[in-house]
């Protein structure tokens, strides 16, 4: 018999719970049957989370002197904080309030009213037994370092960096490529307004380059992340550029004189050439070129040094080595973007085999005025203008053989391509789509415009692209074989050029990068946000935020919004000066710890350190996320989780099993 005074509150949640569970009966039962377990009051209410519902609890705490509160309502993910705050207002330590779920775990998953009611009683009873062992806790306070690390210099990362820097806080921007700009720098036009991509991007790039609060590391990668929210220690590998940045004026004479020509697989998507020493594009930020060691004649064969001979300022420095730089930051924003789906994987589309099949990124370069053909849309022979073009949607997307998800941008991107082809070549364009998805502002208007411009649309998934001519008119063409699902017939459409609107995929190394920063990926490889609707830029790891395509496929406006949103979240943190962390933490009883170190490697947050001198492990409370892995793993039972102590869990199980709850039929037949 406990001395605690427990209040039980059962929520109807409108009809969400009350529709399946007899909530009145549950409340009445708890008030009567759990009286000897310490329950002094038990009530039901239509919406416990409403102000009136909360006031009910607060009033009881004050008037009846409740020392523990159990709320039977929705999942703690949703309203735990609401009820804890209510208790706090009434002077009760918030961690003495327990929210048990009779919605997600009962009413939403069951249909049998009687059984659901009995199960709710069991769950409430478990909560009552558990809450007795809850300890009053105080949140942990951690100071926040004002600097922020932004990883990825695409449009999302640029936006984040600028927002933070403009607010007056230092930013470290790390980019793997020689220049910031990301995929957006490769595009010619942006949908649906068709404004010039470079024109809207480069001013932002220049702002980043010249910003006094932004410390930019291009041609660099993050190699190590230590510490925790508010106080991360990050190691950045600054790859040797072999260019002395203090002497270089960005005149690119080195690039002109370099005799080594290489296919540019990154910026020109394999459609153009670059030199071994190069800036990827004229507006690159920073202006300094990089010398690509793997392709440099001097590094590979020992002679050449043409760049050094011609450099007017003597800025070429073959002796440079990689530098490792360590910085302190309070928060991290990951904006590492996407990779394009590899069209070679769909062999029947012939990419890589049939010359005039292009990927979407190739077409972006083809149509770009600064691209390899100066914006002339031509076939792979470099001269012939196509008279007919087929654009295939959903390549690698919405296809269970490759990726199940929709890549979001492809419909609009395809419409943009169709418009550019018609505008510049007058060719007849045919789009092959499964569904047209032109949601968001002014997008569908663009689709309507294309329809009026005479672009053809065929609804159906393309089966094959072949050069095997069968009928007159197909000779020398690429034939697109498709079932037109609107007329229910197989069709063969001969065209000169095919553009594959390839989907977006997570970066090839997304999983390793996620591990480096201690966050998790979905099965597809996109980084998982804290809440898909209500917290899309935070992650489950405190202090690590995500923005742009790293979270899932999205277009430029959405990437920019997320970049700004992540920055706003970080600014809020910095402004507070310190952060209150949930005190749900593991702790190790040193007297019981045998120093076996099993927990050290188990911890997904690297929160456990080992003291060599005393041969015991210790949990860093600021790093610990309270997941409980180590608690379960410890063979000596030396680790205990606050809010999840063995005592609490065992009592809860006892409450679920031992009280006067009707046993389900199945259990009886087993005995």
């Amino acid at each position, binding site marked *: 018999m406990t001395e605690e005074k427990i209040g039980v509150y059962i929520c109807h949640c409108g009809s969400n719970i009350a529709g399946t569970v007899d909530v009145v009966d549950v409340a009445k039962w708890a008030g009567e049957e759990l009286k000897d377990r310490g329950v002094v009051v038990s009530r039901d209410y239509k919406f416990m989370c409403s102000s009136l519902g909360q006031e009910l609890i607060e009033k009881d705490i004050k008037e009846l002197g409740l020392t523990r509160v159990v709320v039977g309502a929705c999942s703690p993910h949703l309203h735990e904080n609401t009820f804890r705050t209510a208790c706090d207002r009434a002077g009760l330590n918030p961690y003495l309030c327990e929210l048990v779920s009779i919605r997600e775990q009962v009413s939403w998953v069951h249909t049998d009213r009687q059984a659901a009611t009995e199960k709710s009683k069991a769950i409430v009873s478990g909560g009552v037994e558990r809450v007795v062992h809850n300890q009053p806790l105080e949140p942990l306070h951690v100071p926040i370092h004002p600097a922020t690390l932004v990883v990825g210099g695409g449009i999302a990362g640029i936006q984040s960096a600028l927002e933070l820097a403009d607010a007056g806080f230092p930013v470290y921007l790390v980019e793997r490529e020689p220049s910031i700009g990301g995929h957006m720098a490769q595009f010619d036009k942006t949908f649906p307004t068709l404004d010039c991509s470079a024109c809207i991007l480069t001013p932002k790039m220049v702002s980043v380059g010249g910003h006094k609060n932004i410390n930019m590391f291009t041609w660099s990668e993050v190699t190590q992340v230590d510490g925790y929210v508010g106080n991360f220690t990050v190691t950045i590998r600054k790859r040797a550029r072999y260019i002395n940045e203090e002497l270089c004026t960005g005149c690119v004479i080195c690039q002109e004189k370099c005799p080594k020509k290489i296919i540019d697989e990154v910026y020109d998507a394999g459609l153009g050439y670059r030199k071994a020493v190069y800036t990827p594009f004229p507006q690159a930020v920073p202006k300094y070129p990089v010398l690509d060691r793997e392709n440099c004649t001097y590094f590979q064969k020992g002679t050449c040094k043409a760049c050094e001979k011609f450099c007017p300022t003597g800025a070429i420095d073959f002796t440079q080595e990689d530098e490792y730089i360590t910085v302190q930051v309070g928060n991290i924003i990951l904006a590492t973007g996407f990779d394009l789906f590899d069209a070679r994987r*769909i*062999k*029947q589309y*012939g990419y890589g*085999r049939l010359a005039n099949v292009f990927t979407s990124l190739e077409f972006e370069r083809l149509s770009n005025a600064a691209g390899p053909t100066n914006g002339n849309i031509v076939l792979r022979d470099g001269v012939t203008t196509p008279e007919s073009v087929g654009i295939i949607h959903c390549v690698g997307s919405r296809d269970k053989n490759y990726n199940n998800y929709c890549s979001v941008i492809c419909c609009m991107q395809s419409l943009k391509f169709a418009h550019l082809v018609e505008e510049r070549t007058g060719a007849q364009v045919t789009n092959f789509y499964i569904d047209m998805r032109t949601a968001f502002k002014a997008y569908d208007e663009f689709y309507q415009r294309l329809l009026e411009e005479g672009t053809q649309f065929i609804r159906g998934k393309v089966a*094959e692209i*072949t*050069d*095997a*001519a*069968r009928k007159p008119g197909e000779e020398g063409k690429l034939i697109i074989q498709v079932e037109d699902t609107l007329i229910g017939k197989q069709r063969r459409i001969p065209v000169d050029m095919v553009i594959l609107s390839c989907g977006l995929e997570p970066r090839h190394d997304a999983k390793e990068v996620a591990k480096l920063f201690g966050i998790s990926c979905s099965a597809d490889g996109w980084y998982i946000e804290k809440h898909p609707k209500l917290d899309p830029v935070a992650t489950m790891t405190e202090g690590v935020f995500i923005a742009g395509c790293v979270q899932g496929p999205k277009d430029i406006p959405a990437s920019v919004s997320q970049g700004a949103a992540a920055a706003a979240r970080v600014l809020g943190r910095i402004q507070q000066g310190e952060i209150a962390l949930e005190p749900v933490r593991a702790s190790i009883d040193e007297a019981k710890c045998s120093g076996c170190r099993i927990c050290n490697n188990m911890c997904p947050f690297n929160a456990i350190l080992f003291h060599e001198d005393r041969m015991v492990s210790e949990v860093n409370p600021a790093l610990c996320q309270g997941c409980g892995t180590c608690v379960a793993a410890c063979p000596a039972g030396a680790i205990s989780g606050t809010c999840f102590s063995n005592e609490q869990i065992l009592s809860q199980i006892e409450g679920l099993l031992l009280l006067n709850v009707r046993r389900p039929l199945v259990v009886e037949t087993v005995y």
Partner: protein
Amino acid sequence: MRYSYYPGCSLERNASAYHVSAMEVAKPFGVEFAEIDDWNCCGATEYIALNKIAAYALVARNLVIAKNQPDNGHTLVAPCSACFLNLSKAEQYLSENETFREKMNIALEAGGMHYTAGGLSVRHLLDIFVNDVGYNAIAEKVVKPLKGLRIAPYYGCLIVRPGFQGVFDDHEQPDTLDKLMKVLGANVVDFPLKASCCGGHMTQISEAVAMDLLNRLLKNAADYEADILVTLCPMCQLNLDAYQADVNRYFKTSYHIPVLYFTQLMGLAMGMSAQAMGIGKEFVDARPALAKIGVEVPEPAPVKKKRPSKEELPMPRMPEKE
């Protein structure tokens, strides 16, 4: 390397050249194909559509026989694509569907047989050569490269799909045969219709469909200036070879593309004689194409006209067509 071998009906008759060449080519690699005893027809391409139980029982009988002869190893090799597909399909369905297996066993019991799942993998002859023997080993044995011979590698539709056990190549654009022909020194053309259908038994059912499907293949091979179509299936070979003249009549075309088995070309490249490879039995004369690589094929022996015996009575005279 010793394998159980299921030749299938065609290899005893129209595709005997395939059988002979496969056996000859296997020898230098130490590969032995041990024919299973008392096998029966696999039902080919259409029987399964008529009566499922009977059709699968026909195939399952072969599987049981092969499983009961474990001395030949646990791999059953079929050179014909239809046999290969039927055997692997039956093994797949029977091993995963218990009800079907029970029904099948009632049928098999009539012959005193019982099917048990597993213990046998069904593979195609090409799979054995490219994956078990390997390209490198084959390359070492090439003494007369097929240099200058333009070859269109034709896989047909049965060998690569559906994705049952034993399927070893891409469903849409397979390339193992391409690689094999390159190893033999041939000039392999990028044959887009490599995995398209030859028409199967459509030649018997619907002439128009069969002619169209064959025409697609022949036209495409001709467009690519292929000297030879190389196949790995007796059905494909028969259709493309025996009906080529019909296609020419039907569409007023003039294709002349000999159709040979990959084993025959392997043998030629390994220095074996055309005769030993059974070359000369095809309808579309392969001699002009093979002359390009200096392979001589002896003139086919003239068919002797049977002289009417003196006792024979005269044939009835038919009225002249107007």
